[in-house]
């Protein structure tokens, strides 16, 4: 199995800054917006974006939540092994709010389909949007596209795209793993 870095720390941070600017253009002071990090790996993206919004762009008090989609997946009982659910924390009413799902890698789109289903348990949002740091092009199983994308990556099904974070993994990078 070979791993290579396809996006380095500098490029990753430029992308994050660009995503923040686009969010501000569309959401203004975020008074009617809620940013939802997708468990497990989208939570890191959410935290980094919130930090940047505060420190670099002076946007304070952005409402956030984290969403686990395990119970809404379409492959329950269809894949081997155990699906471990993670914590969900949606403290704010999403009714009539603009919800932005935030994830690290958009691949088949099935997680986002499940997320759209899951968030409805907390009310009817006025709008749902999708922000993804990495968009794996041409690999969608469903008609789902991101509203905000950091970088596009071309990859084949047998490859894995992995985002590393300094806080968790020791450095910021995006890796592409090839099978043997």
């Amino acid at each position, binding site marked *: 199995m070979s791993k290579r870095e396809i996006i380095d720390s500098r490029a990753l941070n430029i992308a994050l800054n660009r995503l923040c600017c686009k969010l501000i253009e569309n959401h203004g002071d975020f008074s009617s917006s809620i940013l939802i990090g997708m468990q497990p790996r989208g939570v890191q993206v959410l935290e980094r974006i919130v930090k940047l919004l505060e420190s670099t762009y002076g946007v304070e008090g952005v409402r956030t939540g984290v969403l686990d989609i395990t119970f809404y997946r379409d492959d*329950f*009982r269809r894949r081997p092994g*155990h*699906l471990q659910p993670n*914590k969900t924390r949606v403290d704010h009413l999403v009714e009539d709010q603009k919800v932005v799902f935030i994830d690290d890698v958009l691949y088949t789109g099935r997680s986002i389909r499940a997320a759209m289903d899951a968030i*409805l*348990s*907390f009310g009817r949002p006025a709008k749902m949007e999708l922000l993804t740091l990495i968009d794996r092009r041409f690999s969608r199983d469903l008609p789902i596209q991101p509203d905000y994308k950091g970088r596009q990556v071309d990859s084949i099904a047998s490859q894995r795209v992995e985002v590393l974070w300094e806080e968790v993994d020791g450095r910021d990078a995006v890796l592409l793993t090839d099978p043997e």
Partner: protein
Amino acid sequence: MSELSVNHLLGIKHLKSEDIQLILDTATQFKEVINRPIKKVPTLRDITVANLFFENSTRTRLSFELAEKRLSADVVNFSAASSSVKKGETLVDTVNNILSMKVDMVVMRHPNPGAGEFLAQHVDASIVNAGDGAHEHPTQALLDAFSIREALGTLKGTKVAIVGDIVHSRVALSNVLLLKKMGAEVMVCGPTTLVPKYMHTLGVKVEHNLQTAIEWCDVANMLRVQHERQDLKYFPSLAEYRAQYGLTMEHLDALEKPIVVMHPGPVNRGVEITSEVADSEHSIILDQVQNGVAVRMAVLYLLAEKRKLSKA
């Protein structure tokens, strides 16, 4: 984390500590689910569950039914009072008839110990034991453990006293087995006639004085006096039982540290605990009821997960 090591939940006896940990951790996520504005998830939408109750039950049946419905399973209910069992049908025939209607899981309460294990050997469905005679009641023990962990943060090293009618109680046996597996210290306390002789062989302390027990413990699980299972006189009178083993506010106020009071229900107010105790801040009885739904959702979810769909 890996999946459950068992295909049925027949008793705590068959579970590993990792299984118990997995069920309790999964239940934590389901507790969040049942406190959402919309409390339903679609996970078990292709699963049908039959609730077979050969013995009366109100809260356990309601709790299971709610857990099943919150997981979007299809549910059929069956109670012995209105069934063909009265006409002489055997257990396996009854259940096979129900399974031929494409039922995937069976939740069963039965007056005979081991009924669940018997069924698991003879039918092709996941069996959940909802109480078999005076043998085991695994989901009650799991929800009790979940409630203790929620109240005190951990099970390991926690001192739990189980007080009252131990000999007729499936709750007591399942609780003892589970708490020991999870590293808690356990004491049983009750009149000599209501504590089985072999109890010490399970590694639990045996005590006959309520005061000593509550001074020792962090958690007191007060069991119901089961009049319906007592074919003999086990104690002279209810008044005497109340005087010796009824937990009162005076007991709790006199303790140096606060303890958590639990009861599996239904409560005989004024017998094993007073109304004041049942409604006090020490009591987590209603939390236990809410946790029961979350724990049963976790059990059904994890057992359903083991019934993989074939690609054919």
